[in-house]
């Protein structure tokens, strides 16, 4: 039986409806942008969970997920330090030992700590997109599922030529898959 052949374009959230902030925005500014985007977004029940960071030419240079924000709160001043330890080949055991020592030495949910982290810039915490996180908007959904599954990505950046035109979220791909399954009347 023929199933609905979705393309990336059919399911993606256009970039204009997604939460974006310019590079150099504070973490608090990014969270406000996310809140605003969620209020204006009324397609489906799944809310945005990430913020895209744009350079001065409006090109996507990074992504800030909710988990990244929590990481920022948890690591406070030490986030980039742990990143450096990873780059310079220290073991996870050592990094965990250092972060545990840091955790014990400070509290996260205090007014002072939260204010401090709110002023930090997204540049410090954003994740640069990997080459396998892009998918052409004309691609079949199969390609997107493959990329999400292989790379364990929560979302993909949909492209038209060199331009990023949307975000394909795991929740939307899953919803489309679920919807199709239901149509198949699997017993």
């Amino acid at each position, binding site marked *: 039986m023929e199933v609905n052949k979705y393309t990336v374009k059919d399911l993606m959230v256009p970039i204009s409806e997604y939460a974006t902030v310019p590079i150099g925005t504070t973490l608090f500014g990014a969270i406000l942008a996310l809140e605003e985007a969620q209020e204006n977004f009324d397609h489906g029940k799944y809310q945005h969970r990430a913020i895209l960071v744009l350079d001065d030419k409006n090109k996507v240079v990074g992504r800030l997920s909710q988990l990244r924000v929590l990481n920022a709160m948890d690591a406070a001043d030490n986030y980039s*330090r742990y990143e*450096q*330890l990873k780059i*310079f*080949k*220290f073991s996870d055991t*050592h990094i965990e030992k250092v972060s545990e020592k840091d955790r014990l030495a400070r509290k996260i949910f205090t007014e002072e700590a939260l204010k401090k982290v709110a002023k930090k810039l997204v540049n410090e915490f954003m994740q640069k997109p990997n080459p396998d996180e892009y998918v052409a908007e004309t691609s079949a959904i199969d390609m997107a599922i493959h990329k999400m599954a292989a790379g364990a990505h929560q979302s993909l950046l949909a492209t038209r030529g060199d331009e990023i035109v949307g975000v394909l979220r795991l929740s939307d791909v899953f919803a489309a898959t679920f919807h199709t399954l239901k149509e198949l009347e699997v017993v």
Partner: protein
Amino acid sequence: MLEIEKIFKRIIQRVNINLRDLAFDVSPFVTGHIDLEQMNKFYAFYGITSDIPLDLKLIHSSLAGSYFLGKCRVTDSLLYKSDIRGDELKRKDSTFQYKNFNIDLTEDELIDIKTSALIKTLVHNYSHDPETPERFFIKNTLSLDYANIHGSPSDGCFLGPFATVDLTTMRDCVIGAYSFIQAGEINHLEVNPGTIWVNSPGQFNFLYQYPADKLQHYIQVTAGGYPQGLLIDFIEEHEESFNRVFDAANLENTIKVPETASLDRYAVVLPSTKICENVLVAQRAYLENSYLGRGSNAQENCFIINSHLQGCNVTAHGAKIVEADLQSNVFVGFNSFLYGKQGSRISIGTGSIVMPHTIIDCKESLSIPADTLLWGLITNQAELEMNSIQLDDLRKINTSTNQGNMHFEGHGASFVEAFRHRVNHILEANGAFFHEHNNNVKGHAQNNRKLSLNTIQPFLFGEMQGVYPDITILPQG
């Protein structure tokens, strides 16, 4: 456009192409940094000695104020006041051991510089890359003031001022100012300024990172500007003395140098300095009112001022020792800056190791016990305690530790022994142990006495001004 400008422009483009993945543009760091129209004012020179193969090929390059020793080839490059020292290159018919491989060499090793710009950079030692044992390549690379490329083949890299890469093959990397890397092999890595990383996989891993705001006082590079900071100011304060030794055709030795020691003709020695037996003083070293005990050495771009070095002290390339007293066998690593003051001197006990790129800048006297490892930025007693460890305590570490900005993981004993072995090798290579009871095995201190120097000149006028004619220099027969 002058030919030298075309050469430089092409180098910048090549380096940028290699660094495109890191989105790093070298142009702002080098544009206007050197005055290409002045490059015709400096001669280049090369050493001749019967102990080191003479084989120079200089092709379509500018070499202003640079020095060459041994087998070197320079193509489509711009070298400014750089030292290309091939006296430790591997020789034909020798065997290079790498892990379990015994690699037989069928020809003398070559320093092969291509499409690169090296500014006030030292190139020394030999390729530790088993894939290219006979070719120490430096290709599509740009290095700034007082960088050291030490036993480190390089392709597509940028080294900021005072950066050192030691015994490491690097490809497509950015090494920030005042960083020291010794890691065997690195690829596509961007290293922040003031990163000190010594990694031997399976053995140990040492990392220290300078606080960025504090490092800026000593060295900072801003796009479009010349490197600035105390390190640059310190060198500039002493530059005039070097002009005298480079301008004069012949210079009389101002002090007595023992038969077994060597004082380079392009070193500055000011009263009242004493040089003992088996001491090596390399070119561009600066000595003033200091004592260099038996077997000590002052390598290129070193400054030793108002200081006493008891004996067998290694002062590695670019290290600076001011108002300090060093007992015997103290190792002061690359580009370290021991900046004592009158009335607040630094004293360091026997067998201590000052890690490369350490800064001790104190306003109080600091006394460092024997057998101590020191690193990072130390400006007072509290920072001394934070940034040092007794070697015996380090030997006991078998997992990992963290002190301030320093992280160490692995076997402390292996780390200490690796350093001890390296220091011993440096002393031996430099001739510190030359003695009739030691089979009279010579090192640089003895061999360099037989070194003579020739100068070569660039085109002075026209489109080719500042570029040298293609030259091949080979011994007769």
